[in-house]
């Protein structure tokens, strides 16, 4: 579904992503884990078109989207839930969701109500809050709103940037359960997380990033069992037996 080859990107002269190659297949949850400053968010922003790649190639559904401007990408079916939620605070919850459907082609606008109903079913709390301004929601509710907003454009791939940041453990569990549910309903999810353990627990495959490079990749269980990953990211050192 998503194929990235030798991708390089950065800010000004600073090269952040160095020769990244990865892929996401349909129906998977793929986790990207790594420490602060590893380039995870930059990678997602580059896929979403917010940052221009300096070299390399991003193919989505076998179309080259490397040079596509950001606003054109959601219409292709690839949508991002940005880090820190970034809900439109002065707008109502319902307006936020409707704006998520902005990228829908004209003939599908009629389905807006049905899509809205679907998000309310997925996130019942949003229905209760639908006339409330998004800025008045709690962190967890805002995260759900950001997810619902992204799902409004009926994406084939949802990219989530740090959905667990700043949320209570109980809420994080809810959010991750919803991600699993999304996958079970046929969606594909690319998940960027610092909370490596939780992310790998629900992922099918994972990539570990460090200073702009992919250093380890493989099935999620293997990564969880990998001693390097455990030492560096899971905060657990196995004593010699």
């Amino acid at each position, binding site marked *: 579904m998503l194929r990235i080859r030798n991708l390089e990107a950065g800010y000004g002269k600073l090269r952040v992503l160095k020769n990244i190659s990865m892929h996401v297949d349909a129906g998977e949850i793929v986790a990207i884990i790594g420490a602060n400053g590893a380039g995870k968010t930059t990678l997602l922003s580059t896929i*979403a078109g917010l940052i221009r790649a300096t070299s390399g190639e991003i193919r989505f559904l076998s179309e080259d989207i490397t040079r596509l401007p950001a*606003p054109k990408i959601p219409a292709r079916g690839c*949508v991002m839930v940005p880090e820190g939620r970034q*809900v439109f605070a002065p*707008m109502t919850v319902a307006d936020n969701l409707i704006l998520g459907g902005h*990228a829908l082609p004209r003939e599908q606008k009629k389905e807006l109500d049905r899509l809205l109903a679907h998000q309310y079913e997925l996130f019942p709390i949003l229905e209760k809050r639908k006339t409330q301004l998004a800025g008045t929601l709690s962190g967890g509710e805002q995260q759900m709103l950001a997810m619902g907003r992204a799902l409004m454009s009926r994406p084939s791939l949802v990219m989530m940037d740090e959905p667990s940041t700043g949320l209570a453990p109980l809420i994080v569990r809810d959010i991750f359960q919803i991600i699993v549910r999304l996958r079970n309903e046929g969606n594909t999810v690319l998940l960027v997380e610092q909370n490596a353990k939780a992310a790998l627990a629900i992922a099918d495959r994972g990539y570990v990033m460090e200073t702009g490079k992919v250093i380890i990749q493989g099935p999620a269980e293997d990564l969880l069992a990998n001693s390097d990953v455990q030492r560096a990211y899971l905060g657990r050192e196995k004593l010699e037996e």
Partner: protein
Amino acid sequence: MRKNFVFLPVLIIVVLIQLLTAWTGTIFYLTQMTMSAYYSLLIVGLCVLMGYAGQISLGHAGFFAIGGYISAALTTRNLTAHVEHPVVRLLDLLGCLQAGQDIYGDPLLVVTPWAACLLAIGAALAVSFVLGIPVLKLKGHYLAMATLGFGIIVYRLVLASEYFGEADGISGVPGFSLLPGLFVSGDISWRVTNYYIAWGVLLIAMLLLRHLIDSRVGRALRAIHGAQDAADAMGVDTARFKLQTFMVSAVLSALAGILLTHYNGGIGPSEASVMKSVRYVAIVAVGGMAHLWGALAMGMILNFLSLRGCFGSYDDAVFGVILIVIMLFAPNGILSLRLGLLSPLSLKGRQFFGFLRKKQAAKEA
């Protein structure tokens, strides 16, 4: 249409004011009311740009001047000496020229007001397009400084160019016959008509802007204001929406400049000065940024007071003080102070109305 319920009371107030001035024999107030209405046309356009799209402009007096100066110059500068010039010939072929006599009885050949008006609006569109593409990539202070630079350029250009009358500006601008019976002119016999023309134009603009804000475009604009990157990631073409809003507000400013110049019979460089731009921004802020009717009301009141000379020589200073005080005590506009509850647009207002609705629902259940 519930959204348009404000239009009727406003229309009634407009008519009442006119009748009141007729009864009390103070019809001269209508002149300043007319001028204020044109300034308010610029202000409501700026309000959409600032309050809804979240982009500041300290250069809107520049667009006002582009409109005013171009239509003033074209309708007064004698083209008799350039009859053979291909551009003049083309204008003649298109029927855009009118011949007459100047005050000394010499032949006078000028562009008709309608053609001048369209050319001036075209110029404002072109300038805002060319300026907007690079400048709107900037944010916050940087955008303010860039648009400030544009305002200064326009000011110095009209002040330095002989064609635009240097420090004297352009006078003797003829009236503008919009439609038969609708003559934009400062002549006393047309005073009441002009009052209604100004309000007519202003209310049509309000209707269009209101429509814009309540549409899909308005939702996108508010999203840009809230979180631009997120809006981009949602598929909103933020650059295009910002540019379009910038151009709409530039055209409204130019239109205000054109009509006011024909009404006043002239325009001077002070209309292009940066202080004017600052004043417009201050009025939008007083009106409450994202509040079209607030901006309109403040535009009418403050401009009227200023034009009546209520602030004396301290005119610009008063607007500076207003800006400081508003930013300190009522950053959401004067209407948010206590009347905030009355406005369904404000945060407090929404919560209040939501509360009422819930109460009502509880009662019904």
